[in-house]
Each structure stands twice: as structure tokens, then as C-alpha cells.
């Protein structure tokens, strides 16, 4: 079986490889978005946008997790969620660019993003170790480059990258399996 990283490499020229990656993660990403929004329609739209953004940025994927694309996909999912709340409308930029919504042939969702969508996310962030929390916040929410994150934390871009990766992995664990993460 091909790893996620291999699928993403193949997806540079093969849409079916990307579909395979989608099949692996669609339910989990949808579960994440549904857990945040408690809104079926919004969760589906945010899932669509997450994967549309993943498709458009697949060339820049870097394998930092032993072949797994999970940290990368969850980072995109969080970014889509935070961006929707910040703009007070569902993020649809990549879907519109690719024409995904037209393919779905369904009425446009009118869900209004709410600050409550980020509530658990904020708490889970607070439970991270301070240097990982700061790195995740700067990279995912403030959209800084690794160099900028490193500069802000007084460390190197490489260390910043490691902190973000570890922070996201811990965050994912806390959001998906909160009880397990508390042990």
C-alpha cells in the first residue's frame, strides 16, 4: 500500500491518487469539522474546501511525519475553520477556483461561522506546551512562515518546524481523543 506521501507525489499528475488520499481522510476531516461546527452542511463545505486547498498546494507538501499526510491535512482543516470564523463566512476560495461547488449541484450553504466553532480548539491549544502552542498559533492562525515563527521564538526555522509539527500532532490527539490525551 502506498503511503500518503507517495500518493501526494503521484497526485502531481494523477487525480485518482488524490482521490485515494481523500478516501483515507474524508471521514476524519469531516468528523473534525463537524465536531467544531455541529452543522452538517457547514462541515461538508469545510471538508470540501480543506481537500480543494490540499489539491492546490500538493506540490508543496513536505513529508515530515514518516509518510503520513495527517498533520498537513489537519493543519489545512484548522486553517480553513479559523479563516471562516475570522471572515464570518465559509471559506470557499479553493473550491470556487476548482469549480467543486458547481459539480456538487446543491444549494449554497448559508451557515454563519461562529466564535463557538473555535472554543474547543482554544482550550486544546492552551493545553499544549507553551513553546509548541506559540509555534502552532504563529504558523497556523497567523500564517507566518517557519522563518518568521523561528524569528519570533528566537530559534531557527528548523526548530520552529519541529515545534509546529509536534504541537499539531498533540492538538490532533486532544481534539479527536480528548480522554486518551488526558491520560
Amino acid at each position, binding site marked *: 500500500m502506498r503511503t500518503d506521501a507517495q500518493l501526494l507525489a503521484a*497526485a*502531481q*499528475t494523477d*487525480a*485518482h491518487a*488524490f*482521490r485515494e488520499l*481523500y*478516501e483515507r481522510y*474524508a*471521514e476524519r476531516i*469531516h468528523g473534525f469539522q463537524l465536531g467544531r461546527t455541529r452543522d*452538517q452542511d457547514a462541515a*461538508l463545505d469545510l*471538508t*470540501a474546501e480543506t*481537500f*480543494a486547498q490540499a*489539491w*492546490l498546494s500538493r*506540490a*508543496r507538501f*513536505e513529508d515530515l511525519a514518516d509518510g503520513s499526510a495527517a498533520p498537513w491535512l489537519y493543519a489545512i482543516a484548522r486553517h480553513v475553520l479559523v479563516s471562516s470564523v475570522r471572515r464570518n463566512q465559509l471559506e470557499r*476560495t479553493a473550491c470556487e*477556483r*476548482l*469549480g*467543486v461547488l458547481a*459539480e*456538487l449541484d446543491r444549494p449554497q450553504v448559508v451557515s454563519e461561522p461562529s466564535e463557538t466553532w473555535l472554543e474547543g480548539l482554544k482550550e486544546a491549544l492552551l493545553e499544549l506546551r507553551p513553546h509548541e502552542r506559540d509555534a502552532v498559533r504563529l504558523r497556523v492562525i497567523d500564517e507566518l*512562515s*517557519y*522563518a*518568521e515563527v523561528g*524569528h519570533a521564538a528566537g530559534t*531557527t*526555522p528548523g526548530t520552529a*518546524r519541529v515545534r509546529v509539527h509536534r504541537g499539531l500532532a498533540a492538538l490532533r490527539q486532544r481534539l479527536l481523543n480528548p480522554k486518551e490525551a488526558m491520560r
Partner: protein
Amino acid sequence: MNTVARELHTLGNALELAARRDLARASRSAARRRKIVAVAVGLAIAVPGLAYAATALIGAEEVAAGLPGGTRMLQGTEPKCTVVHQDVEYHCVLSRLPAEPEVADLKGTVEPTVDRTRHVNGGCRSLTSDGRAWQCYIGRAAVDQKIVSADFLGEFMPTPGVG
């Protein structure tokens, strides 16, 4: 199959279709550019008087704009480029150094360039540690220089890349 599973399956179909369309679009766009460059180079060789027309296709200004267009770190650096080999190789010098370089030593770092429509059209390699001087290659030459992969050439880059 429950409703959510059905909806996710439909979404998967829509995404795959959109992805196929995007690949076809990128492929057509890359082929068109290759054709234009080949015709332009052919004309320039065959008819010296038309050389100016060929130079207008990928001007040094476009390469200069394509460098920060492809890389966020280089935004605001105002590169100035000169032609080394028309439509193939350019030498670029930044008017301002990158404010936030992503690595301490930029020498040998490679970055993509984009054309006016924000599609990857080549790439540059830093000649200096401070990132002031770059050697840029357009099209296939950038692949031969191992700056960008053949697959990446022609890709749409809506925003300058990071990292």
C-alpha cells in the same frame, strides 16, 4: 451507505473531477507556453530582425516580477534582471535583501518563478549567502537545473510560496 457517507462519496467524485480538469488545464497551459517559446526561439534564429519580437515574450521585467511572485520571502525585494540567454537564462540582483530569509545562508537555495497568470514558469538559484544575486532559468532549463520538477512547471500558484 448512510447520508454522510453518501455525501462524502459525492464530494469525492466532485473533487476528483475538478482535479482532472485542473490537470488538463495545467497541461494545456504548459504545452501552449512551450509552443510559444519554441516558435519565438525559431523565429529569432531564422529572422534576426524579429529578435526583438522574441525578446518581448519573456522579458527581463517579467522574470523580475516572477521571482517575488513565486516566493513570499522575496516580496518587496525589487529584483532587476538581465538576459543571459533570451527566454532561457537570466541574472537577477535584488534591490533590497529579503527582510525575513527562511534560512540563514541562502546560497544555493532554489525558488520557483511564476508568469503573469501565476503559473510556475521556471526557477532561480541564489548565488550568494545573503540572497542578493540569483540565476534564473525559464521552462525546461529550470528542470534541467534541478530547480523545479517537470510536474511543478505550469502549476498554478495563487499565492507566493513559503518554505
